[in-house]
């Protein structure tokens, strides 16, 4: 099979054609709130715990999450609360305190503060720690991010109370690899710079397995593993340049990425090599300067970028961006979208459950509504797979470009790449690590076993 055919089969499209095709016309979901709730609804407030990076270098990724959450909460409260009665109260927690502290804080939120929903969380180091705790506590949890495959592969193999709505982590590396193979199929010498923890390892593994299927002869010529929170990348950059790569791949994110690209510019790292990142533009959009190199694959964690889908084709995005900008005077990132729609999906699940059983639904009822939910978000349709509670939507990435309308660099909506997520993720019931294979993730094994080697 040749590369073009394969990419076509997998559904990779450039320029947003996919968004148009996957867009059945449904009325806005807000309309459902008008239906009067059934039965007796208590008027006590609903308590939510939202944990995200409020400080540290990751705050540029985390603050938008809390902002998205708060915006949704404010809107819902202004409309009288969920089922018209229960208003939302949010306790926020700083994810920067460290995994151990986060675990303690989650327990405190449930056991002491008696929260009804736990949400947020960015670091993929944290969800595998927090997921089992949430299950232990029987606490309904919708992670916005913390997208590691490991959560469902190993940590919580049979989730009951935990959900997650951003795209799964393996999609990051795979999306980036497919986009790179589509764009620069001749790049064989690959240099890597990844943060030294599970996210970076995951990105490295999945990029390489997918890319080597599509580009025969691809090889790793350099590896750099800076510690999360590194501020001096000069030695990593020099090493990368010294390997004379065709393509540089990175999953460094947040404040670290800003430091990395600025230092790399001064060393001329982008001069001779192409650059592809899984998550470069995942930060709050304004954190990226106009000096960022143009034409790089600047991923958004394969989730959402505020310029796409364009408002003329997808009103939900247009409305969301406007509301968000009006409230916070900045543009949303994928965390904002995730946190915002998490609350609306939760609300929708409650409303549906209420119509079925009346009164305030118990958690079982809410969970059964969330499972299999198909929801219209700013990023397109989101589907929650019932077996693993993972949210799926089309994987997205794009190319950096300076335009006059924004004081920062954006992803060019005209050249956005989308891939149907089901085509790059292991199907349900594919063996998980430890079940007959020891590959890093089920998806890795699935790609390794089933994808053809293109010629």
């Amino acid at each position, binding site marked *: 099979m040749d590369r073009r055919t394969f990419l076509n089969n997998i559904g990779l499209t450039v320029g947003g054609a996919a968004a148009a095709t996957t867009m059945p016309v449904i009325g806005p979901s807000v309309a459902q709130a008008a239906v009067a709730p059934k039965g007796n609804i208590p008027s006590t407030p609903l308590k939510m715990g939202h944990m995200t990076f409020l400080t540290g270098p990751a705050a540029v990724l985390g603050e938008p999450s809390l902002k998205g959450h708060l915006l949704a909460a404010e809107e819902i409260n202004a409309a009288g609360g969920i089922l018209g009665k229960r208003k939302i109260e949010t306790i926020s927690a700083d994810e920067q305190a460290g995994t151990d502290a986060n675990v303690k804080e989650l327990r405190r939120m449930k056991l002491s503060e008696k929260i009804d929903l736990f949400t947020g969380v960015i670091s993929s180091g944290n969800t595998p720690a927090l997921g089992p705790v949430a299950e232990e506590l029987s606490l309904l949890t919708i992670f916005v991010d913390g997208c590691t495959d490991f959560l469902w592969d190993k940590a919580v193999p049979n989730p009951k109370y935990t959900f997650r709505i951003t795209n799964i982590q393996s999609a990051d590396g795979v999306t980036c690899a497919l986009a790179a193979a589509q764009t620069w199929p001749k790049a064989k010498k690959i240099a890597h710079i990844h943060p030294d923890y599970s996210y970076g390892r995951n990105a490295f593994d999945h990029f390489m397995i997918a890319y080597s299927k599509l580009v025969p002869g691809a090889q790793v010529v350099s590896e750099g593993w800076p510690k999360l929170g590194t501020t*001096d990348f000069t030695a990593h950059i020099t090493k990368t340049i010294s390997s004379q790569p065709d393509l540089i791949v990175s999953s460094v994110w947040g404040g670290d990425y800003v430091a990395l690209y*600025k230092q790399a510019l001064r060393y001329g790292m982008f001069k001779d090599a192409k650059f592809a990142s899984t998550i470069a533009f995942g930060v709050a959009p304004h954190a990226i300067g106009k000096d960022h190199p143009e034409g790089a694959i600047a991923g958004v964690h394969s989730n959402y970028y505020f310029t796409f889908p364009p408002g003329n084709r997808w009103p939900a995005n247009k409305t969301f961006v406007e509301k968000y900008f009006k409230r916070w005077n900045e543009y949303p990132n994928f965390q904002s979208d995730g946190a915002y729609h998490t609350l609306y999906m939760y609300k929708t699940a409650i409303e549906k459950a209420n119509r079925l059983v009346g009164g305030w639904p118990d958690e079982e009822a809410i969970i059964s509504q969330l499972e299999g939910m198909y929801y219209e978000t700013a990023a397109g349709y989101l589907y929650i797979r019932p077996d693993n509670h993972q949210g799926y939507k089309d994987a997205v990435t794009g190319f950096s470009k300076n335009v006059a309308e924004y004081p920062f660099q954006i992803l060019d909506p005209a050249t956005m790449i989308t891939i149907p997520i089901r085509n790059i993720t292991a199907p349900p019931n594919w063996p998980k690590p430890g079940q007959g294979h020891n590959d890093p993730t089920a998806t890795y094994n699935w790609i390794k076993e089933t994808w053809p080697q293109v010629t």
Partner: protein
Amino acid sequence: MTIFIIQVLNSLFYAASLFLIAAGLSLIYGVMRIVNLAHGTFYALGAYVSAWAVGTAFGHAGGGGWHLMGQLLLLPIGAIAIAAVGAVIEPTLLRPLYRRPEEYLLLITFGLLMVLEDSMKLIFGGTPLSAGTIMDAMGSIPIGRLLYPTYNLVVMAVGLGAAIGLWWFIYRTRFGVILRATSQDRRMAAALGLNVSRVYIQAFAIGCFMAGLGGAVVVPAQAAVLGMGVDALILAFVVVVVGGLGSLEGAFIGALIVSFVRTAGIQFFPEIELAVLYLIAAAVLLVRPTGLFGRA
């Protein structure tokens, strides 16, 4: 070859800031026998103050010429501010403890570390601050077919200048003699008419100034982020442990060793770049527990 030169330059660049931190740490220990756990935080604070000063005065208006000059001149504000902070902290928080076992001094600097870390969060917020406009304005110079940021050379010059200046200051000036005399025999120094309290304030302030300067010169190249102080402290510790606590030469050589080992680690052992540093420190400790230039 070009790569080799650039990696050497990178190491020297890294060594410069590391030296500034470690020299201050060593100086304070040498004169006052205080192991200042808040020292890395002083470095971070210096970075924040400088970035804030540059950002406030010039905004993001890059550009060269006078703007650049002004920004460069503003940078040392971080160092001066931290020296002032040190001059306040020594007499108020540390002096009451000189009569107590040294454990208390260690603990109070640990408390100070926590207070200052969060104060930075409180004052400067969670978003990194940068003075990158300086770097951009200074551009890069070509080395072979590659580029090297001009500003990094400035940092090296500052580091080297500080090393020479400090050496000259300590070994060639009146105050240096007084400083060394006080560090060796505080009582006798007093008996000869030295105001030891004042010398202590000055020494602590100079140590803080060095840390602040380290932060100030680094901030255009990187950024001021929360947590940078705790990381810096532990690296400065590796430097003084390798070089010898209380020794200026030790801080200098130690900073070079640590930076070159780090660069070599990144270049050749990317999987364990960090562990290499600590293993080196542990190895030196096993062979020469007082460090290369230290005295027990």
